[in-house]
């Protein structure tokens, strides 16, 4: 059954990829590409569900292929299956959406052949990453995933910013690969072909300094992909320039591969570690969460804003996982399980609501041809469906009940609140700090999404483009609608999801099967009854109350008349968009509150009328915030790189004789070395 589905998945992605090559442009080609991705992702989803339901890993190997490195080995356990489900849930709506969205490339701005081919290969290589059972398969799939996503990012290759962003992404992806290669070679003692099973048994006897080095390598290597601070710089560059449905996949699913890798290596292969590992993960997570949302607040490019929120949410996921690692090291198993479950649940939720938000941003971009929120406004009237779906996504990411973001943040909060059980006070004190950071993050996220939704969709259009906006096509709305339904479902039905997540974690790093202390029925209850909450009853209560208010108003014969009139503008006759509040102004108080971080610089140049300084002809205002990481971390690195490149360039004289000398010298040197090694 699973074998058939697996072959079906390969065939479906292959079908989608070849359809792109055969048809290229045209609606038939775009739809066949989407059909391939949907079927492939659907098969992956089914495999994932089957494996979690069965609870036993499935294995398959093709030793003949790449036999020099031990052959391809596929082994899917329930952790991999969870991420396979994640890929499926993220890919199906985005592929449907993409079928219509990619119509915009019919005019030749990007190659539809490349887009369709790479999309299917990308989805397949991600599926292979979570199924990999040995080092070679994992690194091979990982590299395929990075390369195919690079080609997806540079779909609009003619835009000047695209290639720059693509290069950043490619460079960061390969730095990640370097770290991961070192990690796996150290872990296996240099054996390329080692399977994960043998690594797991071998890791127990490694010395503890080596294990610490491996942990740091894993955190950096996988953190680069996940986008933790300060390794996040590629996200706000690459997400905005990619086609929007690709951004949705990258932000929703691709960066989660970093989380998968971290769990696989640190928890599964290494079997967990000392408490400070968890402390580092928790600290990195808290910093990423707060800085991510703070930078998002200052952003007025809708897709860059969402990219920074990915950094924030990766932070929240890592807070959960870090807490889990800490609890595990102290033997507090139920709490550890709660932390991991919170992290995994947020992983799933983030894929859903961030997918939805990126698709919504794509529809807005499609309709207005701008990503600058200052030029939008009033779209709720011209694009009612998109606005409604985006609002659901915005409320979900702000952790508002009864949607999904609330449930996972609640679980993470509950795990952190259990921190007082940690015997070491210096470790326990981290927990309240993390609680504060997480709460600040969710408050700021709510502020940021009031800004993002309010300025984009409400009030009056701020530009002619926004005025002429139109609603997206049905398949784009279908894609967003599927995500929106998932947002509500995951928010209202956690009791169906949480037990499955505890099954996923069973056996990883010695975590036992779901202990009896978990009772997840209608009410969500954390171990040792620390807190209880019932999302379905809250949702039901809200719906009932909302329904009863109008009924009550009828019963009490409240005046139901309504008149429409102009907005009151202090006696002014007409109201123009220039009187509206802008996104910059909206974020100004927070910019001042966090001025130490942002270090805003202001430039104001006023052009007065020559006759009187009381008449202003034009005002130019420019304000920037200090990009700490780009300036103080990456710029010196880049300068060093450029400097060494300049030094190396001296070797190049252009003289053929000199080059022949180099070649012969290199040959002699190689021969000597080869001889010596023998």
């Amino acid at each position, binding site marked *: 059954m699973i074998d058939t589905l697996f072959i079906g998945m390969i065939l479906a992605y292959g079908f989608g990829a070849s359809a792109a090559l055969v048809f290229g442009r045209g609606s038939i080609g775009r739809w066949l590409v989407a059909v391939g991705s949907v079927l492939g992702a659907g098969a992956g989803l089914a495999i994932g569900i089957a494996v979690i339901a069965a609870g036993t890993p499935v294995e398959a190997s093709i030793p003949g292929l790449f036999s020099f490195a031990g052959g391809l080995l596929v082994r899917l356990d329930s952790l991999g299956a969870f991420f396979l489900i994640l890929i499926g849930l993220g890919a199906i709506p985005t592929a449907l959406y993409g079928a219509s969205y990619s119509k915009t490339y019919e005019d030749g701005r990007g190659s539809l052949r490349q887009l369709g081919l790479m999309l299917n290969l990308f989805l397949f290589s991600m599926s292979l990453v979570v199924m990999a059972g040995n080092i070679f398969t994992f690194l091979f799939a990982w590299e395929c995933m990075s390369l195919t996503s690079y080609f997806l990012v540079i779909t609009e290759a003619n835009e000047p910013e695209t290639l720059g962003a693509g290069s950043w992404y490619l460079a960061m992806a390969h730095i990640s690969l370097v770290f991961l290669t070192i990690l796996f070679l150290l872990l296996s003692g240099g054996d390329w072909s080692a399977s994960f099973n043998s690594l797991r048994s071998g890791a127990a006897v490694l010395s503890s300094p080596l294990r610490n080095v491996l942990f740091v390598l894993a955190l950096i290597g996988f953190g680069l992909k996940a986008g933790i601070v300060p390794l996040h710089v590629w996200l706000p560059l690459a997400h905005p320039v990619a086609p929007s449905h690709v951004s949705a996949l990258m932000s929703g699913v691709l960066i989660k591969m970093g989380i998968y890798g971290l769990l696989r290596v640190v928890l599964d292969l290494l079997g967990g570690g000392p408490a400070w590992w968890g402390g580092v993960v928790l600290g990195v997570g808290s910093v990423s969460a707060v800085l991510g949302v703070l930078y998002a607040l200052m952003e007025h490019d809708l897709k860059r804003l969402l990219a920074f929120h990915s950094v924030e949410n990766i932070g929240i996921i890592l807070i959960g996982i870090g807490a889990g690692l800490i609890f595990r090291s102290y033997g507090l198993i139920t709490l550890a399980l709660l932390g991991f479950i919170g992290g995994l649940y947020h992983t799933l939720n983030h894929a859903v609501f961030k997918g939805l938000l990126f698709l919504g941003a794509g529809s807005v971009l499609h309709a207005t041809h701008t990503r600058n929120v200052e030029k939008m406004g009033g779209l709720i009237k011209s694009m009612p469906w998109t606005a409604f779906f985006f609002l659901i996504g915005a409320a979900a990411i702000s952790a508002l009940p009864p949607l999904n973001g609330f449930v996972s943040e609640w679980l993470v909060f509950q795990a952190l609140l259990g921190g007082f059980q940690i015997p070491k006070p210096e470790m326990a004190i981290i927990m309240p700090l993390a609680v504060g950071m997480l709460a600040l993050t969710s408050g700021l996220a709510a502020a940021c999404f009031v800004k993002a939704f309010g300025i984009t969709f409400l009030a009056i259009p701020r530009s002619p483009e926004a005025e002429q906006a139109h609603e997206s096509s049905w398949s784009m709305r279908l894609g967003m609608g599927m995500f929106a339904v998932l947002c509500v479902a995951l928010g209202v039905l956690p009791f169906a999801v949480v037990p499955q997540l505890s099954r996923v974690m069973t056996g990883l790093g010695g975590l036992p099967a779901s202990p009896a202390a978990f009772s997840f029925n209608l009410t969500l209850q954390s171990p040792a009854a*620390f807190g209880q909450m019932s999302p379905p009853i809250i949702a039901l209560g809200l719906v009932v109350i909302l329904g009863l208010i109008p009924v009550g108003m009828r019963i009490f014969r409240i005046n139901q008349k309504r*008149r429409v009139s102009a907005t009151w503008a202090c006696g002014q006759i007409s109201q123009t968009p220039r009187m509206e509040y802008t996104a910059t102004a909206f974020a100004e108080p927070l910019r001042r509150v966090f001025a130490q971080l942002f270090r805003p610089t202001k430039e104001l140049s006023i052009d007065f009328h020559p006759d009187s300084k009381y008449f202003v002809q034009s005002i130019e205002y420019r304000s920037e915030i200090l990009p700490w990481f780009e300036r103080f971390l990456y710029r010196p690195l880049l300068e060093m790189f450029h400097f060494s490149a300049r030094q190396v360039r001296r070797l190049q004289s252009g003289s053929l004789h000199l080059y022949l000398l180099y070649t012969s010298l290199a040959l002699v040197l190689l021969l000597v070395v080869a001889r010596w090694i023998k």
Partner: protein
Amino acid sequence: MMSFLLEIGQGLLALALAPGLVGFVRWIKARLQARRGAVPWQPYFELAKLFGKDVVISSNASWLFRAAPYIIFGSTLAVACLVPTIFAPLPGDGVGDLLAVVYLLLLGTFFLALAGLDPGTAFGGMGSSREMTIAAIAEPTIALAIFGLALGAGSTNLGRIVTNTLANPILALSPGYLLAFAALFIVTLAETGRLPVDNPSTHLELTMIHEAMILEYSGRYLALIEWAAGLKLLIFFSLLANLFVPQGLATTLTPTSLLMAGFIFIGKLAFLGVVTAVLETRVAKLRLFRVPELLSVSFVLALLSVISSFLLR
């Protein structure tokens, strides 16, 4: 069925008392400022009048502007059903804990801020921006104060906290509880738009926050929002009163105990109302950019509360 009725009854009681509480604070304030002031039950007349008026909405506004008052009122009423006012532990104690209460209130704030942006005036945007800034900065304090309370009781459930404090009354005097109380009191002032954070009785564009957001509302929509704002004040007061000093809450379902608890509850509200009124006549409004400093004070208090609970365990 009985428990269900109790839950609803609590919510309705809070709903009925809320305008009176607002009027009472105003009345005390007027007296302290040597004015005669309107009668404490004036807000009931105001609500009745607003409910009778036509609604005028901006031509720029969308469906969100019309839906927001219901969502704000509904979410606040839902919270009022969860928070113990006269009886604890409530049968629906497992429906929503303190965290759920906080996030349900944030749901109302979120839609209020969106509704402020919808008509497209600068006032609304200004109010929304300020409201969300303050809400965001107050959030960590609330979470930590919850942590401090939960540490003592071993649960974030409201009912558990109350019964635990009832069983060990000395707990209410522990430094963890006292510091958490101080932190939550400051947050209450910020979240419910009282001085020194926001001035509930001004319509001056430089200072207003809450009033700026709802400037475009009228008629029954305004009535719903005003009522919800009063309810929010009452919710925060009952959290302060019943979580820290649960004495007087009914624990058995008899008419006399409920009646008794009702009177004690009104007494507690009146006490907090007087404290607020005195405070509001004594302090001036802070500049907006000073408010974060006040809130960081409350954050430090909450953090100290948690740390002292850790150390004293």
